[in-house]
């Protein structure tokens, strides 16, 4: 795996940063770095996952290229993060497949479509893809509930499992013992920092994204993607409640809670993902690398397409297009779930773990200062 190379170069660059320290006012990475005189692999991983890619440090760095030190923390820490996610894959061959990005996603979606279409043809008959379905249970006339919920549940369990193992490994590598991590104050403060994107702004009014100008665009777009995802998740939960508890089968009316929540979420995700992709397209090319593009772009495209097909399904659910749109939507979701633990989707797990670790460390530092009678 490339993790070793990336960690080594990240360590080289961070050691330069640690003897410079000019950037310490930008974000949490630098004060955390200054607490260390030597950087173990776990330290590098921790610092990398603290980094929100605000890029302020790159533009401030007198040692960035063309300087021979070639310091570029946004790229190298991003590469370490990508490697952190991919580390959860069982084999290097799979990791190589995971690096294929959009081509991988296209292939997965295509395979998903083939399986779904074959299943639908066998189970629901050849006409179910081309005729209109109306009334309660319309979706299940195309894809029976068991075949929709079963694989969905399995994929959900798989995502949670992989991410849990990743979180456990991360805590092990950064030497955060479970007893430490169960510090409610640290958990809460880190949670607040994660939700408000405290470190995304790089100590300024916004981040230097996509170019060297302070901008809030990425800050707002992130809220749209994250908020939209949360709403879509909520809509699914409400729909499950309707179906399982109230016994009302979908599709639900346009003014029902699941449709309103899901629609707001879907539109937010479409705007958020498109905006993020626009930013990435216009980004400063010195601050990106192929693997970061794969990681971010494939996630944004998959999530955006899942949202888009979901909204199209809502718009055309009364027409004969229902069957084919449903199958397309499910195939996109399948790809999103399968790839989630290894794409940008996974970042919130490691980011939160790193923020908790950072809180624990700085609390300890403050306590140590207090016991010395001052800084």
């Amino acid at each position, binding site marked *: 795996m490339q993790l070793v190379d990336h960690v080594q170069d990240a360590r080289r660059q961070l*050691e*330069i940063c*640690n*003897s*410079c*320290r*000019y*950037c*310490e*006012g*930008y974000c949490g990475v630098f*004060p955390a770095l200054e607490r260390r*005189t*030597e950087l173990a692999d776990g330290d590098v991983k921790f610092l990398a996952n603290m980094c929100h890619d605000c890029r*302020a*440090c790159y*533009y*401030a*760095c*007198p*040692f*960035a*290229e*063309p*300087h*021979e*030190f070639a310091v570029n923390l946004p790229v190298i820490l991003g590469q370490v993060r990508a490697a952190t996610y991919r580390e959860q894959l069982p084999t290097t061959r799979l990791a190589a497949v995971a690096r294929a990005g959009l081509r991988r996603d296209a292939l997965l979606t295509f395979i998903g479509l083939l399986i779904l279409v074959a299943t639908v043809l066998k189970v629901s008959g050849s006409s179910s893809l081309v005729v209109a379905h109306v009334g309660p249970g319309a979706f299940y006339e195309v894809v029976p509930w068991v075949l929709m919920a079963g694989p969905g549940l399995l994929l959900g369990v798989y995502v949670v499992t992989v991410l849990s193992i990743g979180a456990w490994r991360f805590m092990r590598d950064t030497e955060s013992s479970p007893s430490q991590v169960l510090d409610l104050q640290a958990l809460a403060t880190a949670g607040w920092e994660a939700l408000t994107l405290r470190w995304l702004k790089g*100590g*300024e009014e916004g981040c230097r994204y996509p170019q*060297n*100008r302070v*901008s809030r*665009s990425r800050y707002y777009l992130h809220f749209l993607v994250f908020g939209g995802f949360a709403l879509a998740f909520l809509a699914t939960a409400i729909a499950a409640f309707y179906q399982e508890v109230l016994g009302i089968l979908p599709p639900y009316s346009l003014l029902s809670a699941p449709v309103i929540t899901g629609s707001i979420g879907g539109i937010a995700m479409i705007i958020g993902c498109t905006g993020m992709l626009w930013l990435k397209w216009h980004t400063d090319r010195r601050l990106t690398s192929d693997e970061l593009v794969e990681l971010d772009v494939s996630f944004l495209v998959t999530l955006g397409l899942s949202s888009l097909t979901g909204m199209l399904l809502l718009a055309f659910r009364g027409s004969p297009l229902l069957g084919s749109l449903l199958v397309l939507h499910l195939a996109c979701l399948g790809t999103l779930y399968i790839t989630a633990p290894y794409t940008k989707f996974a970042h919130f797990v490691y980011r939160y773990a790193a923020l908790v670790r950072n809180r624990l460390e700085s609390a300890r*530092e403050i306590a140590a*200062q207090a016991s010395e009678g*001052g*800084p």
Partner: protein
Amino acid sequence: MHEPRPAHARADRRLHNSAPTGESAADVIVVGGGNAALCAAMTARHKVERVIVLERAPADQRGGNTRHTRNIRHAHQESDAHVIGTYEESELWEDLVQVSGADINEELARLTIHESVSCPAFMEAHGANWQPPLRGTLNLARTNRFFLGGGKALLNAYYATAEAMGVQIYYDSPVKDLTFDGSRCTAVIVESNGERRALGARSIVIASGGFEANLDWLERYWGPAARNFIVRGSRFNDGVVLERLLHAGAKAIGDPKGFHAVAVDARAPRFDGGIVTRIDSVPFGIVVNSQGVRFSDEGQDLWPRRYASWGRLIAEQPGQVAYSLFDSKMHGRFIPGVNPPLKASTIGELAGALGLAPIALERTVSEFNRSLTGNGRVDFSQLDHLSSNGLLPPKSNWAQRIDTPDFYAYPLRPGITFTYRGVEVDSDARVKREEGGTFDNLFAAGEVMAGNVLTKGYLAGIGMTIGTVFGRIAGKSAANYATG
């Protein structure tokens, strides 16, 4: 999301055929691209239309030694969010005299100090951001205000502001000469794309720095030893404009041989290594030369004050090299350098790794260890008077045995920060002439005239003070002359 930007704000802009040329290319031309130059250009632009900045570096290396700065020293009456306590003008004056001696130009020094008070407001108004206190306000500095992200971030803000104001900035545009008509500077000769062209202006501000990156020039005074110096700052500070000014009869100031140098890692890049090449291990052990012999008191004063003298000390040693030794007790006690120290389990082995004679180094270390009779606990936060006994040179503070493996060493060389040689100016930043009087329309700011205020020694952040104060004065004087 695209902010409207003036058409000339392209970062790669060189002088091209449609650029202004000839006798009246601008109202004010500023030569240089660092802090003083930008302060002069922005100040002038508040008053006149056509201001040109000629930066000799490419855009991605713009800004001279300002790239490596971190803070500005300024007097202030009260605390605010970014400095604590008071720092009276009188106290700053005393600090300056303490490092530079009494023979400084008192008028200009007091002017600098007085004007330093308004520097932060000027900087903020032109885009500067300050670093917030990181570990509680107790850690705020009193004498120096830190800009967020350091000098390059400040430069980015200044360049953006200057461009937005309509200052025309040209990169890769070294000034090779100046032409004169009596006491008036008629034009600067710029070399761009292999061609020389003359650009004239009503007023010209020289803010092109010193000559510390010109090893040939340093060799005139230092002989072949200059080849072993490391230049901490920009490789573009070759002093060409300073040399042409002096050639044209500008009155010189400052010791021609004088430079400020600190101990840096001998493995540092020849140019532009900046802050990360400095080595702070000296007070934590001993320093020997290439003969394996100590040559100065490693514990003479608190390190921040003493730190600046080691560059000169090493420059005077054979081969301009020295080695800072310490043992495992001290490892991790100071900010680590960019390169790890060399490491060995015995002194003899360490000598081998450094290319020193093991016998000589072992003798130096054992003599040093034998001279330590006290048993106190070292305290680096103050002069602890734990000193050697009967040793020459002594180690006056923090002396403790070097006896616990592993043993470590950093190879050191002199790292030049800046030179003191410059041109003399008056209180309007107007350049004085050797034959008496001043040039009519020629002004100077920054390192090229810092020798008026700082003749030797160094105070952290004073270079930015002089550059900002005299940049503003030069910009204002130049604009006044241009409109007068």
